[in-house]
Every structure is written in structure tokens, then in C-alpha cells.
């Protein structure tokens, strides 16, 4: 079943610079692992922004589960919440994602916005603190953490929404080998659990390890 369909997408940030995406099309089935590769500035992040409903194509269309995602579509709060709950986005720069006072509150932000009960929020946060080995720093201020820890907190806060599709922008950048290996195993588990993965990365060998496919921009 197709979960994401981009059809003939044109997108430009600046008219003078021309379109970043020119007639770009993409199909992603549920449970797929898609690796986006390409040179710097080739449009990998732009594709992820479009998929996450943060930018909208100038021409062409974006369908999520068969429904066209447009600015008007996401103006409805209920629809926007359902959409963003279904797709998680790990930004390239984790600093962008960390704005709460403690690691605990950072992870709890998404579930709270979903309107879950305090018990359910706490259960999810505790599980993720354990999974990402963040228990010791649960009361620390996120933006004072090291780069690797920030990335872990950002990823945990994405996973707290339990999204069906997980989009990751350069998830391996800035990680040491131990963390990178752990992340690879985590992604394999997500794939095995039927989650859809879209990963923009320069790292080689990810598609082979995940049993996914590569799309070069």
C-alpha cells in the first residue's frame, strides 16, 4: 500500500536560484526503507520538508495515504495533529528541536500535545529514557548536553509520538561509532516492526543493511 506519493513536484525557495526540486516524483510503500542520497544542496532536506508538510510544492502534488497534503489541508488542527502524529521528523540540527527545560519535558512534549493522559505520557517517557539510556540526565537542560546526547533526546522525542513513518535528516552526522552502530540496530528494529523509514544521509551502506532502496537526487 502506497503511504507517500510525490508527483511531479516543483519547489523553489528563491526565484533567482531556481527550483530545488524539478518534476520530482516518489512513491513509498508502508514498511519501506528509502535512503535519499545526493550532493550537498541537491534537495534531500527539501524532500523531507515536503513529506512532513513544512513546505508545499509550487507545482505537483503530495499525497499521504491517498489524501492531498496542502496548506489548507493542515489548517484544520485535528487533521494537522493526526498527520504529524503519523510522520515523525528528526531535524538535521537537534538544537532546533530542543526547547524544553528538562530532557523529561522534551520527550513528553509531543505526547502532551496529543492530549494523552499523564500516566500514558509518563509511561512513554520512562520507556524512552530507558531505551536511549537517558535516565541519568532526565532533569538536565537539553541544550546544555553534548552533541550525541542532544541527538538522542531529539530522536526519543520523535519516537514518543509513535509515528508510522519516521523521516531522519542526516541521523548519523556527529555520532561516534558506538552510537552510530546502536542507531543502525534501532533502525533495523523499526523496519522489522513495519515502520516506514525515509533517511537522508551521506553514509554508505545503509540501504544494504536495512534492506531498503536508494534514491539519488
Amino acid at each position, binding site marked *: 500500500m502506497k503511504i507517500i506519493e510525490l508527483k511531479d513536484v516543483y519547489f523553489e525557495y528563491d526565484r533567482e536560484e531556481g527550483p530545488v526540486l524539478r518534476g520530482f516524483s516518489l512513491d513509498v510503500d508502508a514498511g519501506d526503507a528509502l535512503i535519499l542520497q545526493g550532493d550537498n544542496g541537491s534537495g534531500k532536506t527539501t524532500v523531507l520538508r515536503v513529506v512532513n508538510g513544512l513546505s508545499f510544492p509550487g507545482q505537483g502534488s503530495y499525497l499521504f495515504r491517498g489524501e492531498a497534503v496542502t496548506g489548507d489541508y493542515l489548517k484544520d488542527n485535528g487533521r494537522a495533529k493526526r498527520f504529524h502524529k503519523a510522520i515523525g521528523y528528526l531535524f538535521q540540527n537537534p538544537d532546533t528541536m530542543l*526547547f524544553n*527545560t528538562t530532557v523529561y519535558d522534551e520527550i513528553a512534549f509531543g505526547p502532551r500535545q496529543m492530549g494523552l493522559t499523564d500516566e500514558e505520557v509518563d509511561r512513554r517517557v520512562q520507556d524512552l529514557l530507558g531505551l536511549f539510556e537517558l535516565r541519568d540526565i532526565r532533569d538536565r537542560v537539553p541544550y546544555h548536553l553534548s552533541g550525541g546526547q542532544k541527538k538522542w533526546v531529539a530522536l526519543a522525542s520523535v519516537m514518543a*509520538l509513535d509515528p508510522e513513518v519516521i523521516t531522519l535528516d542526516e541521523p548519523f552526522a556527529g555520532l561516534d561509532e558506538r552510537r552510530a552502530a546502536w542507531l543502525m540496530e534501532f533502525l533495523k528494529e523499526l523496519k522489522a516492526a513495519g515502520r516506514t523509514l525515509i533517511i537522508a544521509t551521506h553514509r554508505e551502506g545503509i540501504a544494504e543493511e536495512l534492506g531498503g532502496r536508494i534514491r539519488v537526487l
Partner: protein
Amino acid sequence: MLPDWMTKTEEYVPPHDGGAFYYKTLKRLGGVLSRLKAESGREGKRSLPAWLKLVVLLLYVLFLSLSRDRLITMGFVASGLLVLAMMPPKDIWSVLKPGFFAAGLSAVLFLPKVIMDPGSFMNSLTVVVKVLMSVIAVGIFNRRTQWNHVTGALRKFHVPGVVIFMIDITFRFIVLLGNLMTEMLTALQLRSVGRNRRKYDSVGGIMGTVFVRGAEMNREMYEAMQCRGFTDDYRGL
């Protein structure tokens, strides 16, 4: 491939330039940031809970401003100074500085009144002392309480989550933009070998970049919040 001049060793003797401008600016900025960033090590193991300190601070400032008896006012002054005296010397000076500034400012404001009515000198002096002690009390609280504990205390008093969130975001942006400015100034200092006659142009460029980056960060953070289900309807902590 390399241009010719890159392959030769360059003998360079820079013209004299103290470099004090960058050094002073960086030092001042670094001082402010380190105060804001102080996350750990401020509170002792036996420190009072932040909410209790906040209550004590509010009551201290309230009763100090309401006290009419000079003896009681002096009691407040003595207790405040006693707490201050127990702090490390470098902290004492950083608490006293804004206190002296505020007291000096209020003294200037009272000066015309004292000149026209010398009999009001003691009353004016009492107000100036009250201002001094209030600012010192806030400074002691600030020095002795971690920021995330302060927001925790505000939550305990049922301050709306969105208010705490906005305070916290403001605080975070000051630190992040301050860090960015420090890094850019350091990079500028490292590249400014020799005499730089256009220091203020460079600093103007840095200020502009920090402003633009601040706007970008604001947009990016809002998008990150949207991606986690935020729809302008904040659900409190």
C-alpha cells in the same frame, strides 16, 4: 594546483594593535553568558527547595517595602547582608553591582526632593536602602537557584504553562544567540591579524547575522513544534 604564494613561507610581522577591543567585548559577553548558562554547581547539596526560596524572596521584598519602622528595616538589611556575607567573594561583588546601580539611580531620582526639602533626607535614604536590599535579595536568589528549578517552582504555584514556556524560550534564545555571537567574535579575533581599522563594521555584520539567525531559529523551532503535534494550542507541562 596551489597558487604560487601558497607554496612559499611568508615572513609576516604584524603592525601593533592591542586587540583589546575583541578581548573586552568577548570577556563581557562571556561573563553574561556564563551567568545565564549556570546549570549546575550553583546549589549546594543542602540547598532549600527552589519554591521555598521563591516564597522567602517574595515575602522578603514585600515586607521590606511595607516596613515603616526603621529598626525593622535595619533588621531586614542585616539579615540580607548576613546571607550575602556567606556567599563566595566573587558572587558577592556580582550581586552587589546591580544593587549599587539601582540604588544609585534611585538616589539620583530623590536628589531634587532632598535639595528642596532637606527634612525628607532620612525617608529618601530609607527608600534607597530598600531598593538596594531588594535588588540584592533578587541577586542572591538568582545566584543560588538553578534556572530549571525556578521554572519548576513557578509550576508549583500554578503559573500557566504557556507563560513558563515563553519565559524559558526567551532565556534559551538569549543563551543560544549569545553563544553564536561569542563564536563569531572569536573567529573574527582569530582572523584579525594585524591592525583592523574596521572593527565596528565587523561587529555590525555580526549583530546583523545574529539577528537573521535568531529569526531563522525562531521559524525552525516553530516547525519542530508543529512536527510534534503543536497547533498553537499549548498543552501545559
